[in-house]
């Protein structure tokens, strides 16, 4: 492709680089080029947050930025989460313990948003603030209360 550009992104701690069409969205770089399909696309209007990833420590909706904008950045996707709960992080385990997911489609984005929210707040956060903090991520299955409980579980059980 004559108009392609070289993009290099550290994804989950591993250096990746691909020659991409400049208009390629970060989410498609991750899904189509890196075959990291845990990051989902729910809406093309950036409403749902299923595509949420961390870019240099900030939560970002990966369907709203171009891969070239993440050039040189460190990206963490759901596949990069890990922890002491049978390999799962406290947030992942919280969702399992509290039934914070049903179909699982919004879940990767929800996990990333919750991880970012807990890091940002240092865990000092009310249920109300959890709800406000996750309002960029839509879930159609759970009605959210169990997601709030899941995040609370993660805060209460975070490894010290």
């Amino acid at each position, binding site marked *: 492709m004559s108009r392609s550009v070289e993009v290099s992104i550290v994804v989950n701690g591993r250096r990746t680089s691909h020659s991409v069409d400049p*208009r390629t969205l970060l989410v498609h770089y991750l899904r189509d080029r890196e075959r990291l399909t845990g990051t989902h696309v*729910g809406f093309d209007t950036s*409403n749902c947050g299923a595509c949420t990833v961390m870019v240099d420590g900030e939560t970002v909706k990966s369907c709203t930025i171009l891969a070239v904008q993440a050039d040189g950045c460190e990206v963490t996707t759901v596949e990069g989460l890990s922890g002491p709960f049978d390999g799962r992080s406290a947030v992942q385990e919280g969702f*399992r313990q509290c039934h914070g997911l*049903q*179909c699982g489609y919004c879940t990767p984005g929800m996990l990333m948003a919750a991880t970012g929210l807990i890091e940002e707040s240092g865990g000092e956060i009310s249920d109300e603030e959890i709800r406000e903090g996750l309002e960029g991520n839509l*879930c*159609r299955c759970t009605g959210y209360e169990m997601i709030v409980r899941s995040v609370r579980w993660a805060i209460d059980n975070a490894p010290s």
Partner: protein
Amino acid sequence: MSLVGAKVLRKEDPRLLSGTGRFVDDLAPAGCAFAEFVMSSEAHARIVSIDVRRALAVEGVLAVYTAEDFAEFPDVPGGLPDLERPTLARNVVRFVGEPVAIVVAEDRYAAADGVQALEIEYEPLPVVATIGDATATDAALLHPAHGSNVATVVPMLEDLERELDRCDGRAHLHIVNQRCVAVPIEPMSCVADWGVDGLTVWATVQAPHHLRNYLANWLDIPQVDCRVIAPDVGGGFGSKIVWYPELFLAPVVSKRLRRPVKFTQTRSEAMLQMAPGRDQEHDIDIGFDNDGRIRALRLVVTQNVGAYPDPTGLGLAVLTTWMAAGAYRIPEVQTSYRTVMTNTTPVAAYRGAGRPEAAFSIERIVDVVARRTGLDPAEVRRRNFIPPTAFPYETHNEAVVYDSADFPELLRECQRLMNYDAVRAEQEARRGDLSKPLLGIGLSCWLEIAGFGPNGSLEGFGHLASWESAQVRVQPDGSAVIFAGSSPHGQGHETVFAQIASDELGISFDRIQVRTGDTATVLQGIGTMGSRGVPTGGSAVKVASQRVLARAKKIAAHLLEASEHDLEVVDDAFNVRGSPGKKVGWADVAWASFQPLSIPPELQAGSLEERLFQESPNFSYPSGAYGCVVEIDRETGRVTIRDMVIIDDCGTVINPLLAEGQVHGGVAQGIAQALFEQMVYDPATGQPSTANLMDYLVPSAADLPDFVAGRVDTPCPNNPLGAKGIGESGAVGAPAAVINAVVDALAEFGVEHVDMPATPERVWSLMQGGSS
């Protein structure tokens, strides 16, 4: 310990939490091309010309197809004569978003470029976007050959005018149950790969065998050459039972291009193409005496089915009229319905499918009876409830015999948990205090029809049958695999069915796997809809497991030289009662079951397998009492839910954690219908004005309250589990609770009804004396 009834964590979760779930768009078979529809920009128009040349010239575009390229194939199956939906629009487009052409390209970006480049010239036709316009005497016709925009009519036997007039009082409401969109977070997606070994279609659907049955027929190929797989499915809520054109066209395109082809909707496409639900108008009349007793009820339903009647869309109003009388003993009930076509997206099932509409109208008008008689809404309900002793209860429709319920207990528990009397006192104290928000209390004592179903019930919607299948197979090591015909989309079948099987087989939960959603491996199946997963599919698992255990006991008894009647199975082993230590492990029994020399002569090798088609003698009828307390801002009309109490009766509960999750999700959608969501079309042009999620308000965590949940269990007598189903309950019961609370809060303004969604604008204008 019994696992049925226990809060067991889900088998599905480790993969879904680690990003290793597999949804259709995650699949990328080698050489996969990407296809995208060119959608109609017009609600009703003649297609004058389609110019594909510029689209074909776009770099990466492989092919462009229009209707004439599929002329040898039939229309989308399941339609009514003269009203069939074409897979691609032929000559005329009838709703905005209707697929007109397909662009296939190397990737999704090139496909989008091709779609942009394709040129279609339209000649406008008169648009009928509303029920009113479609049924006007001089209305333009969507399907001139049909002669009317009314697709079907079921009239009423008598109009009940005399009975209504004879009552002390009568009331009428005109209720608009607005069009809502299911919005599963995963939009439609399918991949078709038609190679020399046959066709495989991966599709995000709720009923893969149902699709296989119709697709093979449509393509005129044997079913054995047509494999449909529903992998992880990202929500459905009814919208993924529908026959969308890409499910039929993708295989043809794959065959022609000799490579796999993928369709994946963007959300903007999904909002226009995935079937919405509801969209009924009701005229409901009720006759009552001064003591609050209801004597007569008449419900007239008009269903907007959109541009092409979908088999499910046509059936929604049937369920509405069946459930018209709700939880009440009403001596005279009459119903009628008609289905009307408009220049809008075809309507089909959305969580509850016809039953939320019934529950909403009866629960709304019972509140009107309370208002007119001066009785408390709870008291009016109590005076009219079908008593717990009256079940099975025959209703106004012979197809509908309620199985079991305890409405007084549900309401009592609901009132207790919402501190009903205290909130009423608070409301009274607050009246006239302009410094505080308005306070309203709403009740909804609902029931619905579920557990589809009895023989004949799903056939009417085009399904092969109404049973559900399970195949239980014990492996040589004593682990077990269950092939379940009910294919899930978030309900947790892998967990719940393993709980049921573990209890019956005595095989530990971790040694049971549940397989679903693949027509090549799963015997046969009907699908997951109508709250039938546990009552019908789960019962199949239970009975099949029991039969396998009975044969396993014969083998164990043979090995132990004991009587099979003395055996009990605990912790993966068969123990002889009263003889401690005399036992044989499940693994040994399973191993022996495949060895002709090790089994009793009446059995054959491989007997620890059972395939079962579970039929139901009747439906199940989940019920509940929901209570809602709202506050309304006097300045803005904004409604805030302060308390939401939900008491459910779903019969036997398999997993309380998952059951609560189902109710929460349904209640969230019910609240969303009551307060936020509506698919709106410009009545003049048929252009949707809520075609994306900037305008169509799907609630976030910040928009919804916590729920207080409780349960009353009356087992269903119509299936071996005693389960009624729980998937749709919340969406059925919640809207009336919320709106009754809103109307209650607005009582001082003389408001008797508010149509959904009760937006700030709508509520505010009612407070100014406007109409709803």
